[in-house]
């Protein structure tokens, strides 16, 4: 039986298949878009692309709901203020671009380039970044760094000298024992990882899940351990305590490849399983059993770093603890353990001249990432600098600020109202576009070229192409063209080629391919790389010591703990519950909130608040009823949320999926559906090592309708 033969089948049906890559989440799987009568009729997984392997998650299929969303931004919009009222009017591209360029130019002349910041999310940002660099602006912020992947990246970097990677460098299919802390694969539909976990289960992979909630992944686990939220580091220290005190760790590997073992032991020897049991609510015997099983499956065992990793102010140290737990069993570059996938070797495009930047990295945090030209400042710093009136203008690409920025909706809105100028580039009228002075409608990822994607390391390194499947709809334009128009207006020369096709073709010709060739399958794949160390191979690490840093001298020198310490996080006040958050497999927050195709299933339509039955009884809540939530600062959810009474959650926590409760009426489908998680964030805990923002110290109680 054949599968994934997208082209063979399509030709019989008068269909055309175009290969590209998805934009519904950061994973960026390969897609095959099927076109019939000039319209995309379905999207399937690309059989050529290593990350999709012919398969696709619901969101990928749901691209048709995005391109054909009737609420899409159709024309450039300019805000007009008349008689105390402000409203948008349609504008031509030339007028909108001229207005944008003039305003940005004046702000730069008056306040300097540091008064302008670009916030971005999504793969089309690259052309705007190049344009802004040539303009002299170098404040680029990627909100996902703040609350999602920053700690994971930097925590790994500080320990191993390389980031955790996307897909994470864990040899899942060959692993025999994987430990997860609150990472819920299956609800997080990271296609490749889900495929590997499934294959792992078929081959006998044992899964251990520490999570306050019985997630879908917990449903696959040999053991679900409902840990008290905020106590992961205590648990991990106790696991280390058992590994070391019972002599279960890989002594040879640790002696040869790590530094700081004595300091680590000094720290963890006090965290006995009995002590950790009191902190974490997990019995000491269970802790011992997990530690022993973990060691017995070594080196084909690992602790997974997870994805959204900033929960409290100690996110980076929490990731370091995970990295150290892996190091102790010597699973580095071993089948079923930690691997370091390689990226495709695509030469960088020729650098074009740009004015001298005052700073290359603007973040004040000592361990903020220093190697990403698109991420030079934390997004919460942009918000703070805006409130302090240092930053006067934002250029926002694909970031729905009120529902994304981790200092919560209220602070984000205050910041936007202080700005002199806000430009939003988006495909849909999101909340952020409602605060903008200029709205530039980009066409969707299915209607444009973007830069080549060589950013994903995997078993077979690859570079992949985003290409238009159909022509841009309405008066929308690709980001590359909008950036080119702005560059021209700002008289910035020599940044872009004559056309995006010429640019892509030149890049591909450098590696002996061409745009024409890559357009056929959307991807160039190289041979599998060597993942495992050879017997006797000497390992080197790009850390200051050249070894895996169990204790980090650089953290110590900067005034932080060299070895991660457990710090108690506040408990919810009486009658309040910690808000835990996650996602649904068919949705990616703002990107899919208004997608009618994906929202058709009843399970997708709204978020629920998960409440333990004992707590529901205490508050006389019944399953299916609609209530409001009130947080510790008195903020009440704008829209009601449905109660889900379930055994699947601890009594001290509630759970809701992020990305619902949209309050912008122009999102005609998403408006009023469910409650907004971001609205209920009033407290942010900043990780002072890398500048990430945690928000799990927010608590809610229930308010019944009057």
């Amino acid at each position, binding site marked *: *039986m*054949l*599968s*994934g*033969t997208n082209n063979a*089948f399509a030709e*019989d049906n008068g269909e055309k298949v175009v290969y590209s890559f998805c934009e519904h989440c950061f994973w960026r799987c390969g897609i095959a878009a099927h076109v019939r009568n000039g319209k995309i*009729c*379905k*999207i*399937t*997984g690309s059989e050529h692309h290593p990350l999709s392997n*012919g*398969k*696709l*998650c*619901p969101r990928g*299929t*749901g691209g*048709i709901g995005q391109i054909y969303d009737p609420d899409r931004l159709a024309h450039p919009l300019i805000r007009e203020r008349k008689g105390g009222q402000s409203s948008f009017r349609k504008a031509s591209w030339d007028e909108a671009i001229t207005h944008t360029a003039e305003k940005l130019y004046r702000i730069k002349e008056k306040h300097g380039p540091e008064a302008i910041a670009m916030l971005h999310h999504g793969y089309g940002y690259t052309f705007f970044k190049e344009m802004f660099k040539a303009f002299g602006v170098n404040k680029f912020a990627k909100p996902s760094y703040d609350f999602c992947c920053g700690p994971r990246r930097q925590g790994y970097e500080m320990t191993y000298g390389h980031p955790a990677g996307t897909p994470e460098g864990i040899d899942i299919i060959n692993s025999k024992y994987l430990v997860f802390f609150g990472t819920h*694969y*299956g609800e997080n*539909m990271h*296609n490749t990882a*889900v*495929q590997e*976990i*499934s*294959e*792992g*289960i*078929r*081959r*006998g*992979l*044992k*899964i251990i899940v520490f999570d306050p909630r*019985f997630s*879908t*992944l*917990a*449903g*696959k686990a*040999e053991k*679900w351990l*409902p840990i008290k939220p905020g106590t992961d580091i205590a648990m991990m220290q106790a696991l280390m305590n058992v590994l070391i005190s019972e002599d279960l760790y890989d002594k040879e590997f640790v002696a040869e490849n790590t530094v700081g073992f004595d300091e680590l032991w000094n720290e963890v020897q006090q965290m006995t399983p009995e002590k950790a049991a009191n902190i974490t609510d997990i019995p000491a015997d269970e802790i011992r059993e997990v530690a022993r099983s973990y060691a017995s499956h070594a080196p084909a065992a690992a602790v997974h770093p997870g994805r959204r990793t900033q929960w409290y102010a100690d996110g980076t140290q929490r990731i370091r603890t995970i990295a150290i737990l892996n190091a102790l069993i010597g699973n580095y570059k071993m089948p079923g353990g930690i691997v370091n996938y390689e990226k495709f070797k695509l030469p960088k495009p020729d650098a074009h001249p740009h004015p001298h930047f005052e700073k290359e990295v603007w973040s004040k945090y000592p361990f903020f990432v220093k190697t990403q030209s698109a991420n030079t400042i934390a997004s919460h710093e942009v918000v703070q600098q805006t409130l302090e009136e240092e930053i006067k203008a934002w250029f926002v690409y694909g970031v729905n600020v009120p529902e994304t920025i981790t200092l919560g909706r209220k602070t984000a809105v205050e910041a936007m109202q202080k700005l002199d100028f806000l430009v939003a580039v988006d495909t849909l009228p999101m909340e952020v576009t409602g605060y903008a002075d200029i709205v530039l409608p980009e066409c969707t990822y299915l209607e444009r070229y973007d830069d080549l994607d060589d950013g994903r390391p995997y078993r077979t390194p690859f570079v992949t192409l985003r290409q238009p499947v159909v022509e841009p709809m309405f008066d929308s334009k690709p980001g590359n063209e909008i950036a080119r128009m702005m560059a021209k207006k700002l008289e910035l020369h020599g940044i872009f080629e004559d056309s995006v096709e010429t640019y892509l073709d030149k890049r591909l010709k450098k590696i002996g391919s061409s745009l024409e060739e890559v357009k056929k399958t959307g991807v160039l794949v190289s041979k599998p790389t060597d993942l495992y160390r050879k017997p006797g191979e000497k390992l080197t690490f790009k850390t200051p010591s050249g070894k895996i840093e169990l204790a980090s001298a650089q953290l110590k020198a900067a005034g932080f703990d060299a070895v991660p310490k457990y710090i108690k996080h506040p408990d919810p006040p009486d009658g309040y519950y910690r808000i835990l958050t996650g996602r649904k*497999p*068919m949705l990616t927050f703002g990107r899919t909130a208004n997608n009618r*195709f*994906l929202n*058709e*299933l009843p*399970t*997708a339509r709204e978020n629920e608040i998960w409440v*333990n039955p004992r707590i529901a009884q205490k508050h006389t809540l019944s399953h299916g009823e609609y209530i409001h939530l009130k947080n510790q600062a008195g903020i009440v959810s704008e829209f009601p949320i449905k109660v889900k009474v*379930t*055994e*699947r*959650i*601890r009594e001290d926590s509630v759970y809701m999926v992020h990305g619902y409760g949209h309050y912008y009426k122009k999102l005609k489908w998403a408006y009023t559906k469910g409650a907004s998680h971001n609205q209920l964030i009033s407290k942010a805990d900043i990780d002072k090592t890398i500048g990430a923002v945690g928000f799990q110290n927010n608590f809610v109680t229930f308010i019944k309708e009057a």
Partner: protein
Amino acid sequence: MADKKNYGMVIDTRVCVACSACVYACKSENSVPEGYCRDWVVQETNGTFPKLSMENRSERCQHCAKAPCVIYCPTGASHYSEDGTVQINRYRCTGCKACLAACPYDARYVHPKGFADKCSLCKHRLDKGLETACASVCPTTSLNLVDFNDPEEKALKMMNGKEVYRQKKHAGTNPSLYWISARNKPGA
């Protein structure tokens, strides 16, 4: 391999995560009208905190060998196809709903255009030697199309040594969908 096909499915609930990719893939493959679906996902949790268990399943028409929908269809619209699937000839269907009442699996709906509709096991794809849309998209490979007449079939071998069940066996419908229980240990 036998010339005559006898199609069905082996559904591995150990790996299913209830993501619903199958539902969306089916909807776009088969132009299923808004508000309806031919397949759906069940997430079943049992027990009390903290002793819980879960099974995720993607469900659809069971393509029964003794199908009540075929038996009770007054016009012959519902019929057995020679490849072992149950199909509907929509031009013979009067939309009387006898089949909806007869189906123990609640697998059918009335299409807004007036005929009964359900999973066809993507017959148009089977005829071309392709997998069903749901199986081809499934990220976990929980969904496996099988030909029960093919003794070499890999998916059939998958069931060996595992706890496998069929739904509502007591209804006597002899369904063609087999379920590998989530109770099986990893690597069973």
